[in-house]
């Protein structure tokens, strides 16, 4: 068996997950990337029964699209005050980019599925029509080389045959069936959501009178939130906790990091060269800092409410 792989057309670039397809001498390799882990599934060329590509909308935001959006934002922020026409040009560019994405997602997208006698799997990396065309153009001759060509009217012969596995659930994919469904919440996620509300309450209550003690409590809550997020990542990785809570933890960490940096910048501007442990009462007097804490409290409330909704969401048992 050869282990040298060549990449096939199609690459799904997600924020947390990605997918690619590779071909070896005798099989296709579907690779699902989970950032720190890769899962593989092999489809031997001699076993492939059918490949079906169905057109339809796929509204996927890839990391490449996110990079383009970030670049646009950076250029917009840099150029809007320098040239009067820049805002208009960049606005037009943004509309064009968005319309292009909408068009590609709705009219030039597809789903691809591959069938063998024992499996039926979606190929997530094939989600644009031109990619599907290139993929079929590369793979079809290789399969025909191994299996030969279908003789006669295959559509008629299909009446006596079954495409794919006979008794497999409808949406069987690369994931093996999970015996126990992941939980909507755990003790860690409960503490995490409670700390979000506590953070919001602390921000609101000490909005105009920030003391050193309140600041240390705020740091303590931040540590609880980070620790809770890490535990939730591990629980999700082990299949204990649902993905929604993990995503909430990611959003919280991003918000926490952004607020932390903005606070450092504001402290640096206000205190000059000693921003490491700024005087909280002096910081609290700054209008921009006041606004930042209001925004922080708002974000914490929203994230906390989302967390509470996820906790209260009814648990769905597998069918």
């Amino acid at each position: 068996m050869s282990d040298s792989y060549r990449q096939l057309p199609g690459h799904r670039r997600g924020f947390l997950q990605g997918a690619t397809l590779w071909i070896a001498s005798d099989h296709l390799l579907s690779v699902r990337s989970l950032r720190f882990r890769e899962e593989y599934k092999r489809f031997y060329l001699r076993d492939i029964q059918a490949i079906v590509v169905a057109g339809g909308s796929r509204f996927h935001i890839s990391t490449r699209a996110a990079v383009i959006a970030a670049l646009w934002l950076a250029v917009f922020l840099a150029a809007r005050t320098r040239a009067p026409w820049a805002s208009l040009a960049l606005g037009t560019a943004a509309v064009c980019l968005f319309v292009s994405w909408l068009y590609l997602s709705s009219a030039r997208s597809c789903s691809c599925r591959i069938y063998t006698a024992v499996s039926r799997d979606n190929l997530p990396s094939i989600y644009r029509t031109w990619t599907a065309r290139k993929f079929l153009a590369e793979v079809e001759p290789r399969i025909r080389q191994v299996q030969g060509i279908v003789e006669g009217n295959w559509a008629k012969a299909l009446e006596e045959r079954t495409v794919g596995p006979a008794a497999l659930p409808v949406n069987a994919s690369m994931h093996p069936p999970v015996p126990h469904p992941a939980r909507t919440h755990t003790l860690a996620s409960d503490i995490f959501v409670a700390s979000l509300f506590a953070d919001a309450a602390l921000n609101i209550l000490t909005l105009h009178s920030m003391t050193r003690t309140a600041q240390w409590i705020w740091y303590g809550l931040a540590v609880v939130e980070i620790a809770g997020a890490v535990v939730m990542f591990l629980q999700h990785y082990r299949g204990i906790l649902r993905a929604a809570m993990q995503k909430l933890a990611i959003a919280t960490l991003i918000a926490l990091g952004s607020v932390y940096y903005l606070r450092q910048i504001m402290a640096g501007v206000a205190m000059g060269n000693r921003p490491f442990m700024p005087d909280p009462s002096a910081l609290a007097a700054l209008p921009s800092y006041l606004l930042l804490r209001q925004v922080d409290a708002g974000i914490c409330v929203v994230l906390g409410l989302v967390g509470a909704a996820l906790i209260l969401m009814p648990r769905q048992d597998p069918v």
Partner: protein
Amino acid sequence: MPVPCARCDTPLPKWELAAGDAAICTSCGSSNQVRVFPALLSQSHVPVRTEAALDGEAACYDHPSKRAVAACHQCGRFVCQLCSVESGNEVWCPSCVAAGAGKARSANLDASRTLYDSTALILPLLSLLLYPFTLIAAPASLVLSVMKWSRPLSLVRRNRWRFVAAVLISLTEICLWTVGIVYLISGRFRGSR
């Protein structure tokens, strides 16, 4: 069952498939391109049947009552039809496949792999979000890179640039911390004099 739609699993109309390789789903309306290969038509889905071994016949190592059909290319054990695992031109026994022995190991039959190089790279970068954490993450990434350097990488990516980048970024962060700490300490000493 005819070919199902790849979006909604509704069977595609046979008359359209008979006319060509494309069919419109009657349920969701999506246009399906269908490629069918001989494996579908030639294969009859009957379960693998092992034959009973008669007196004097070679029997399977794991199923002594079943007739052996091949010998494992790794360990030489006899295997019945049920136990034989084919790969290319070779037949392996389930034990050798499970243990990843000899060529079974080089065949890369892993179902998943942990990407230590990506972990080592993301650690020092992600910790920049809250930069004090780089104090822990940078050495952790450095240790991870050194310890896992020789571990197998992804099945499809063969180079170790992520490890190299992780080491460089971690070393930079450690150097910056060292410089910062030395600067703080020396500044305090200057201030006290």
